[in-house]
């Protein structure tokens, strides 16, 4: 198989963005096939000269991931004339002219209100919005600097105005200035000549970081983390020091490891698979997880166990196969240079992070890679109290219970639901990959049903695991999207969901729904489900299982039968 012949993004320089042409990207066929049905993400940018770099960075960042993007740029001062526009997935406001670069002359009492109106316009249209906040003043080192106070007031008020908005991300410059020497980035000449609020190096760094953040937030980032145990997840080698000898104390050597575990738990909650890849004895590892109360990462949060004496690359390939994800969407973290090299050599497409040096800065190192989910509050958990719970049920098997709730998709759910549609490959009925903005349009369309399903396992919230989109096409209703996370497989969840939306449609007088299964090399689980549907008499299928399903009036009885059978 070909591999992507591109240098790491971190090594790209300003001119690379401008000269980059997609035809130079030697795409892997497998990857391009995999993403062939992914629609372009529509991005709107409002800024000044730095927009050019930001737009190029986004284009490059997406192209490296075999994704396409439609970009529309406006001069910053045009935001006052923004029109409600459909189909914009994300909108970026870069606010350079408010602070140091222009002497803060643009900060006026009406500015905050106008900007709030413009941001709300995009949020209400279903876009996610990123605001690059005004840069700090170089004179901020002097206490009481009026320009800096004015900037901080502005940011504080913006925070207050959008306190409850889940689809807005405020990006402070301090994110990047922390890694740069402030005297290097302030370049009045760049402002004078090109209206750029910093030197090209810093603007390029910000642009790359924002591009990567957006890609991750849209669910195109990594899907799994493969993590080593000894001296990575915990301090010490469990085979040598035993379970009790592992350092996991929060006041000493174990603190940075606990911090790392907290990071992994957060990633898990954002829908990332966690796999353990370790040359160890499984029984001993089990005991460490079970008996060391300090452990923050639990066994239940680990989706794959590669604990054996095989090469780590072998375990990672098994992980990719079991989770049915491409190896390029896995990041491998280990403290051993040897293991990192072995894995990179065997799996060139994989991303690796070597844990080395000062552990206290390890999380900062992870953040700077820009490959992890982090900026937006896009946890799969949703605020149950704020969403209408339409139906709930319990599927019980011995002591194991699943509770499912169906929710009308609101703006609060757009992140998770659109991510799920993008990420899901195995139980993805149509592979339509409806974009975020399209999903929001459909959710507002009276002729469409857009329903999300939220699941709790043994009273532990797992968040939204399934999305169904059904739209009216002429006289028929057709399933435009139906995705189900593989975490919910083989538990009867799909039957319950089918029953739920069928009942809802029946209540509205709909008796026939067209399913069109788009088979891929990853949809075997879904095809089996189709076969079972056909056997149950609920599906009118041709030989290819590829055409129609009819939800008859007796679906309830038949599905209850299927559920019992499950």
């Amino acid at each position, binding site marked *: 198989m070909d591999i992507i012949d591109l240098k790491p993004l971190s090594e790209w320089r*300003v001119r690379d963005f401008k000269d980059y042409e997609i035809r130079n990207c030697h795409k892997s066929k497998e990857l391009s096939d995999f993403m062939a049905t992914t629609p372009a993400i529509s991005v709107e940018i409002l800024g000044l000269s730095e927009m050019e770099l930001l737009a190029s960075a986004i284009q490059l960042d997406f192209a490296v991931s075999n994704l396409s993007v439609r970009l529309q740029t406006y001069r910053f001062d045009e935001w006052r004339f923004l029109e409600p526009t459909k189909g914009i997935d994300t909108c970026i406001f870069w606010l350079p002219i408010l602070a140091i670069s222009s002497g803060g002359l643009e900060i006026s009492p009406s500015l905050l209100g106008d900007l709030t109106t413009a941001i709300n316009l995009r949020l209400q249209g279903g876009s996610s919005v990123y605001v690059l906040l005004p840069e700090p003043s170089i004179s901020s080192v002097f206490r009481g600097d009026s320009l800096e106070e004015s900037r901080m007031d502005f940011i504080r008020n913006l925070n207050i105005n959008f306190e409850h908005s889940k689809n807005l991300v405020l990006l402070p410059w301090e994110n990047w200035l922390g890694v740069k020497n402030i005297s290097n980035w302030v370049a009045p*000449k760049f402002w004078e*000549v*090109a209206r*750029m609020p910093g030197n090209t190096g810093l603007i390029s760094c910000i642009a790359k970081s924002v591009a990567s953040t957006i890609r991750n937030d849209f669910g195109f980032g990594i899907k799994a983390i493969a993590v080593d145990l000894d001296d990575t997840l915990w301090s010490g080698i469990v085979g040598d020091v035993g379970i009790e000898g592992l350092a996991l104390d929060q006041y000493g050597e174990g603190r940075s490891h606990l911090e790392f575990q907290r990071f992994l738990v957060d990633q898990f909650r954002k829908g990332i698979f966690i796999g353990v890849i370790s040359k160890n004895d499984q029984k001993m590892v089990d005991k460490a997880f079970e008996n060391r109360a300090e452990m923050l990462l639990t066994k239940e949060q680990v989706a794959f166990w590669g604990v054996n004496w095989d090469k780590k690359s072998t375990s990672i390939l098994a992980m990719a196969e079991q989770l049915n994800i491409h190896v390029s969407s896995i990041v491998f973290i280990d403290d051993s240079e040897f293991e990192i090299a072995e894995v990179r050599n065997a799996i060139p497409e994989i991303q690796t992070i070597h844990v080395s040096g000062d552990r206290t800065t390890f999380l900062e190192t992870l953040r700077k890679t820009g490959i992890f989910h982090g900026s937006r509050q896009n946890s799969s958990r949703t605020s149950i109290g704020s969403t209408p719970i339409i139906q709930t049920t319990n599927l019980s098997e011995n002591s194991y219970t699943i509770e499912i709730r169906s929710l009308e998709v609101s703006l609060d759910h757009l992140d998770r639901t659109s991510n799920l549609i993008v990420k899901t490959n195995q139980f993805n009925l149509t592979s339509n990959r409806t974009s975020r903005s399209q999903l929001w349009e459909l959710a507002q369309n009276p002729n469409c049903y857009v329903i999300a399903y939220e699941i709790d396992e043994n009273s532990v919230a797992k968040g939204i695991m399934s999305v169904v989109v059904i739209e009216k096409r002429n006289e028929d209703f057709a399933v435009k999207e139906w995705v189900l996370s593989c975490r919910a497989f083989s538990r009867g969840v799909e039957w319950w969901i089918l029953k739920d939306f069928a009942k809802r449609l029946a209540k509205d007088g709909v008796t026939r729904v067209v399913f069109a299964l788009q088979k891929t090399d990853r949809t075997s689980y879904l095809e089996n489900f189709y076969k079972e549907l056909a056997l149950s008499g609920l599906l009118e299928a041709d030989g290819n299982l590829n055409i129609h399903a009819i939800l008859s009036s007796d679906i309830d009885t038949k599905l209850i039968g299927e559920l019992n059978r499950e």
Partner: protein
Amino acid sequence: MSNSEQLRNLICEILGIQNEALSLESGMGDPTEWDSFAQISIMVAAEEKWSVQLSPIEIGENTTFNLILALIESKL
């Protein structure tokens, strides 16, 4: 090292190209690495290196190796 050689080194470092790829007539657009952003970077770096002040108009108008060299030498 002459001003010309120092300027050549500086420009090539910013553009990330070999010294041989730069002639006296080189400028914005040729080589392709020399774009508008590179132009600003070159002029700002030149300001620092020779401790001279360049106006935005001078930065915008002097866009070849020859012209920049002449501009800097006129200010020394």
